[in-house]
């Protein structure tokens, strides 16, 4: 459903994304691993339309979206969540999901009644919150959620747009270690349930191993390895680059 072809993005001399090609199939959850500065977030920004590439091609559902606006990509079904939580802090948890639903159904333009009157939207919002196991916190402010629930809500917002492909930038960063697996369980089961594809940027190798169908390893803007989680973990070359284990020594920090 998503094909990326020889994509390049340079920031001056820094080759953030250097000739990357990849393919994501429907319903597939792919992890993107790599050290800091490997170009993972830039790649996600290029796919979501937050940045425009220097060259290359991005094809989604048979249409070329290389230079399409972010708005168009959202309408086509590419959603994303953020590394640093990005929520509507002064709205309730319910409204955080309800506003994207209003947007998706074009009701921001057309809906003239008070928001509460649209009970079908409210019910759908609750269904989504149910799916992500936070429907009992609907009336809370996002500020009162735990870090884990906040991350889940962030994904739920992207999910509520009926995205076919979700780009999740470190969904477990900032979440307490003991809670990480719960958060991922919730998110991944929701995705599997609706057969949604996802590209997940993740640092925690245990999570990568447990939840992804396929792993892409990036280094200095290039994809250096690709395969099943256990294959990638055992790849000496990848290990040496990602963790500095093996021939190379850990340098500096």
């Amino acid at each position: 459903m998503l094909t990326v072809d020889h994509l390049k993005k340079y920031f001056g001399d820094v080759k953030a994304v250097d000739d990357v090609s990849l393919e994501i199939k429907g319903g597939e959850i792919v992890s993107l691993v790599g050290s800091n500065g490997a170009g993972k977030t830039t790649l996600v920004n290029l796919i979501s339309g937050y940045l425009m590439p220097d060259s290359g091609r991005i094809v989604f559902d048979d249409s070329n979206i290389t230079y399409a606006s972010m708005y168009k990509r959202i309408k086509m079904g590419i959603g994303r969540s953020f590394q640093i939580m990005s929520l509507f802090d002064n709205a309730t948890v319910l409204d955080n999901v309800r506003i994207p639903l209003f947007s998706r159904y074009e009701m921001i333009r057309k809906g003239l009644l008070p928001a509460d009157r649209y009970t079908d939207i409210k019910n759908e919002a609750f269904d989504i919150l149910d799916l992500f196991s936070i429907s009992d916190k609907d009336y809370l402010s996002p500020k009162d959620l735990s870090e884990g629930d906040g991350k889940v809500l962030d994904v739920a917002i992207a999910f509520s747009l009926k995205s076919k492909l979700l780009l999740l930038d470190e969904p477990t960063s900032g979440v307490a270690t003991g809670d990480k697996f719960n958060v991922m369980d919730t998110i991944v089961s929701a995705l599997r349930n609706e057969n949604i594809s996802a590209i997940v940027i993740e640092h925690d190798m245990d999570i990568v191993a447990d939840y992804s169908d396929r792993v892409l390893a990036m280094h200095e803007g290039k994809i250096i390895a690709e395969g099943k989680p256990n294959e990638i973990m055992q790849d000496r070359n990848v290990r040496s680059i990602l963790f500095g284990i093996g021939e190379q020594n850990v340098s500096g920090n």
Partner: protein
Amino acid sequence: MKVDLERTILRPKVIIYLAIIVVLLFLPRFLSTFNLILFEYGLTFAIVALGFNLLFGYTGLLSFGHGAYFTAGAYGVAMMAKYFPELYSMEILIPGALFVSFIMSAIFGFLCVRHTKIFFAILALALSMLVYALVFKFYHITGGSDGLYVKIPRMFGMTFEGVRRPQFLSGVYYYFLLSIFVLTCITMKGIVNSPFGKALQAVRDNEIRAELIGIRVRRYRLYAFILSGMFTGLGGALWTFINGQVTPDVSHWVFSGEIVYMTLLGGFAIFEGPIIGAIIFTFLKLYAMGSTEYWMFIIGATLIILVLLLPTGIAGGVKSLTDIIRGKRLFSGGASHVNR
């Protein structure tokens, strides 16, 4: 159906509102003409502040130039009086004022919403000072610093020949103003509770995420700007009939600052805040002016106390007080889950 009735008419808030409207209907019997007219000034500024707060409190854009749209409404009416006396009738003047302020806020808004924060505030201020300069300098058209006289208009076929202004203001006009005010409140409440209003609040809270859920941020900011300008223009038009004269200082940034002040005084985070702020400000300013020549000191001191002690304004203060009395039922909205 019975449940519906309980949820709409019998809610405590609705009962309080109805009680307030009843009190307002009988207000001319209790207040002296002087205080009643002052209260009418307060009501027009309440409409202005509600309009301003759609942009400030709900969309997160602080405009220091709302005097310009007030001027559009006020001078719209005054120019009609001067150039089209045969059309000088309330049912034409109000839509006319709305139209003029629509045009002006659409043009200025288009320029302003490209920016946010301080850049937005200063650009809005600069544009309003442009209006000030034009109104001030085009003496032959606008009357310059003398302004324009505004006579009492015809209303729905009624003429007020020989009626003195205080008499007009404490009679028909009060009820007209009151009904427009109630309509404004209902419309504004509808706007902020609609999906559109929710989208504006999403834009205010998190611009980038709002864009990413498919909200056209700049476009909705413009819509909010235009609506805000139109309500301000409506307030300006209604104000001219009370004041009897329009002068260029309503387009000066000091006047725009007063609109900001009223909104802060009442509390921008609560729907009713700007209304309370506008009415209190009107009385505060006039009684301060009447009692001391250092009235600006009183206004300034109030602002300092406000910012330091009541950043959420009077309405915000009252709300947190009632929350404390009720034992902090802060998240009473939880019932919505049960009712769905």
